């Protein structure tokens, strides 16, 4: 009952056995064709029951009372505790592997992802500059990710420093004055499409005072796929790769 769970199930080769997903589950594209059971906070118990699943995988963000109600109807429910920080991704995949009896596929997937993360780690060994990064969530206002989010962890692992890492929150509204003071060298905009990104970049650069900050002057404003970066699933590693390439082009093939 969450998009990242759906992504992990598909990555484990279980796509054909998923009978219901939330309305937010749009990756991989095949998931869009699967019957919808509602959203994260409003899954529909009746639809879930009618699909007669062998297992319901919930997570802590689903309302506990709804999850309990599903259990009372006689359906086996497994509630995942999704952690924060990239290192928690591998145990999560392995746990899903255990409850779906695909332990070996899960171990393989976790090992593959871990290897990619280690490649990035190795590539960054000995790096001294850690560019200050500001992450902007496309939309109204200056929403960014604070120190408790896994995006913060990703930036760290990709050899950057999150400008907003001192905020003790996952998502937070940032002040314009503080961005100017932080003077980040790189801005990542989390957007769903290229046009959203272009609009977000234009709006960011137009804000009073922004023309003076380093990232705008040097044109270092980049797009990140919001869809991939906001879900605690396998695609986080792709986001990590991209961040590392953008932050340290000298170490990772120089694609910018």
């Amino acid at each position, binding site marked *: 009952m969450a998009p990242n769970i759906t992504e992990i199930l598909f990555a484990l080769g279980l796509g054909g056995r998923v009978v219901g997903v939330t309305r937010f589950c749009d990756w991989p594209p095949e998931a869009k064709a699967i019957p919808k059971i*509602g959203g994260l*906070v409003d899954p529909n*118990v*009746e639809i879930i029951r*009618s699909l*007669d699943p062998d297992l319901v995988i919930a997570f802590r963000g689903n309302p506990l*009372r709804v999850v309990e109600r599903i259990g009372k*109807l006689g359906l086996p429910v497994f509630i995942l505790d999704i952690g924060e920080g990239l290192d928690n991704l591998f145990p999560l995949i392995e746990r899903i592997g255990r409850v779906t009896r695909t332990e070996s596929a899960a171990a393989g997937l976790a090992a593959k992802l871990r290897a990619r993360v280690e490649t990035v780690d190795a590539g960054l060994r000995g790096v001294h500059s850690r560019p200050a990064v500001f992450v902007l969530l496309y939309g109204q206002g200056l929403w960014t990710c604070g120190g408790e989010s896994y995006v913060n962890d990703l930036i760290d692992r990709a050899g950057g420093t999150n400008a907003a890492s001192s905020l003790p929150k996952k998502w937070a509204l940032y002040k314009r004055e503080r961005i100017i003071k932080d003077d980040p060298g790189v801005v990542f905009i989390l957007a769903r499409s290229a046009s959203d990104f272009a609009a977000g970049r234009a709006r960011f650069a137009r804000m009073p005072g922004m023309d003076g900050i380093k990232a705008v002057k040097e044109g270092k404003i980049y797009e990140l796929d919001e869809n991939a970066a906001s879900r605690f699933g396998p695609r986080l590693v792709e986001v990590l790769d991209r961040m590392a390439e953008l932050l340290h082009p000298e170490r990772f093939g120089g694609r910018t």
Partner: protein
Amino acid sequence: MSRKTGRRLFWAVSMFLCLAGFLLSLLLGPVRTTPGDLARFIQNPDRVRAAIFIDLRLSRAVLAFLVGAALALSGAILQGYFRNPMADPFVVGVSSGASLGAVLATALGFEAAVFGFSGPGLLAFLFGLGIVSLVYALSLRRGGFKVETILLTGIAAGALASALTTFFLFMRSDSYDQAVFWLLGSFQLAEWGQAATIAPWVVLCLLASVWLARDMDLLALGDETAQALGSPVRRVRKAFLVMSALLAALSVAVSGIIGFVGLVVPHWVRLLIGPGHRTLFVASALAGGTFLLYCDLLARNLLPAELPIGVITAAVGAPFFIYLLHKKR
């Protein structure tokens, strides 16, 4: 049309609508089902359909009916009690107290189920009853027992509880999604246990209020006159206040705060069949239950996502209420 045929018509139509409402509740839902499916299920039950028809849809319909009956009865009692058509179950602070309890439980992470109530349900019930007792105690100490004092104390205590509720919501903004369903009511999580918890109380209060209906009629003449005519006014008043608070607090505990039913339904009924309390109580319960049954049908079928039922009760109830008032004049 004479009053008597009018009444017969009222009962016939209400009974019909009520039964039709239950049937529709069984047939309509996010999972498409036909009357044929229902007939086949009755002949030959299977596990999945049993869960959908009996555990989910029927339990929900029964609970919606019981809560509607409880709220309308509670409203009918209080309107008689205060001799004021503006009174409803929530004016003495039950709703604000109950929502404070529910939000507090959510904020503290007290979610476990106790005695068939969820954690927020239980705290809602206790806070709802607590605030009524407090209001009652405060009103008594002001020397004598004045209706206006209860009313005003109730409004003041309610405002205080609302302020605290908003404060807790503000502090824990992540529990807001859940809280909306408390503050506007929902039968999303209805189950048989809840219906079984409140059913005996609803029946008991209905019987008791019918038994005391004569005294309520006398109260309409004023407390002194009622006393002179041999009614034990103070005891009657206390009994009615306890019953109305109990009914409202139980309703909030299982379904959150559903406004408008307690205010509007007794009015409809009074306009249609007259002010005698004995019939008014029974008819309000029937009409309130039926009304909420249909509101819940709309709440869960109107949009792909569930709507809080309070949105429907107000949106449907208010225009119809205004229409009836104007027609009467």
